[in-house]
């Protein structure tokens, strides 16, 4: 009987993993299409339109191209590390998905230290980038890797401080508990009492995913393509896939920590009663898509920062603001809000 239960559990987890992987990887592939299309429109171009109706088959064509291209390893490269580095980045980006709940009862592993595990995976994923940069045997790649390490490490501090404030208010590390706490609170969403934390977290999410305007590790005007310079074929594809998966992870994290996850605040339901009938997955998807659109919108709008500006902003502005946010939350908690 116990063996049957164990087998059932394993099969259930495998099904959940397959669903999450399928959904997110498909989303990641079509986000590339959406990005090209949206940025195209913003710059008065058409974007991809040749492959399939409205260019909808473009991601599949890109995938086929990447899979069939030659996988080149430069002579100067440290072969083993060069081959493993993209795998490290992609694996840890995907592992994050197992901790994030997509629905009250749909999560691969609802662990007690969910938020901390996401931070741990993010800090290990950086190794993939810096090792990939170093092992390529190129100056551009090495500089890209070093920039990435400095950037991600620095921005992890305000990001963690903002998360600490969220954890303090929910009194739990579990993401599902954080969402439930927001439902029960008088504000309905953490974004209202923690607006400072939300802004800092959002900006840090851009830096953590190496997205514009913080895409200095792959700044093409200075470093060719940064740590990806020497990569080709499906290994380059892995880096891209990891970047887009990380975008989804960060968007889901923002939605769960600040926007009430799959729920809507009671005050909003009182103002617009028909919203009650919206299915919870649609609410979550709508919120996540908004942030994905924001990632793309910001890329099309803002120019890239200089590296000293990026560091100054983190250490002199975001860290003090995140500490202030933490203090505000502590006072609110003390006051019984």
């Amino acid at each position, binding site marked *: 009987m116990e063996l049957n239960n164990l087998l059932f559990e394993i099969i259930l987890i495998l099904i959940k993993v397959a669903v999450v992987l399928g959904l997110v990887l498909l989303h990641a592939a079509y986000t590339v299409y959406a990005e090209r299309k949206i940025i195209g429109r913003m710059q008065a171009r058409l974007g991809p339109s040749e492959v399939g109706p409205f260019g909808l088959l473009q991601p599949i064509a890109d995938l086929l191209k990447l899979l069939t291209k030659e996988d080149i390893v430069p002579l100067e490269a440290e072969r083993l590390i060069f081959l493993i580095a993209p795998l490290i980045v992609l694996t840890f980006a995907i592992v994050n998905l197992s901790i994030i709940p997509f629905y009250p009862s749909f999560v691969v592993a609802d662990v007690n*230290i969910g938020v*901390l*595990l996401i931070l*741990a995976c993010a*800090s*290990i994923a950086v*190794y993939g980038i810096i090792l990939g940069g170093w092992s390529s045997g190129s100056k551009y790649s*090495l500089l890209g890797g070093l920039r990435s*390490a*400095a950037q991600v490490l620095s921005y992890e501090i305000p990001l963690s401080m903002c998360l600490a404030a969220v954890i303090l208010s929910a009194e739990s590390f579990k993401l599902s508990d954080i969402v439930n706490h927001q439902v029960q609170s008088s504000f309905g969403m953490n974004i209202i009492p923690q607006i400072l934390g939300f802004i800092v977290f959002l900006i840090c999410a851009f830096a953590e995913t190496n997205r514009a305007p913080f895409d200095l590790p792959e700044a093409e005007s200075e470093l060719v393509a940064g740590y990806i310079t020497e990569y080709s074929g499906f290994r380059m594809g892995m880096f891209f896939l990891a970047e887009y998966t990380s975008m989804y992870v960060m968007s889901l994290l923002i939605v769960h920590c600040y926007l009430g996850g799959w729920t809507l605040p009671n005050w909003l339901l009182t103002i617009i009663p028909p919203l009650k009938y919206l299915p919870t997955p649609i609410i979550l998807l709508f919120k996540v898509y908004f942030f994905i659109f924001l990632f793309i919108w910001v890329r099309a709008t803002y120019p890239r920062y200089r590296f000293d500006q990026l560091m100054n902003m983190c250490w002199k502005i975001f860290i003090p603001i995140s500490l202030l946010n933490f203090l505000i939350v502590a006072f609110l908690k003390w006051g019984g809000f």
Partner: protein
Amino acid sequence: MTRSLFMLSFLSIFLILFLLLLREKRVVYQFLIYLMMMILLGVVYLFLNAEFLMAFQIIVYAGAILIMFLFFLYLYPEESFKVDTLSIRQLLKVMLPSCVFSLVLILVLLLYDVKPYKEQASDFSIKELADLLYNKYPLAIFLLAFILTYPMIAIYLLVKGSESND
């Protein structure tokens, strides 16, 4: 018994990694082995039901501190780190504390059945705590004692060495 076996297997992986670290000549590869040891330590914490400690072990040590270390390695030319291969005597000196540690740990594991940590009532006295640590969790006390003693001996030897040089 199963837990003891798992602990022994973790220990053997630690030892293998330690030997690989000594054998490896390239600094970055040595660093990678050290990183693996740090992550494995996190796994051991997880195995001992200390999930919180595991997360911090990975975020702070494997994530933040070691990346800074790697940064330093990248910014220096590899030649400046070149050292001659260790002689047998030097190797023995390095291995001795680890061998003693491993032997005592194996003895402790064989003598006591390591049980998973269970949450205790928060109002128990110091006497009860001492009784719990010394009688029910000797492994934790042993590890702590070793971790604290090893650097003390190292500092003593370093001071002795510098005195004799003067």
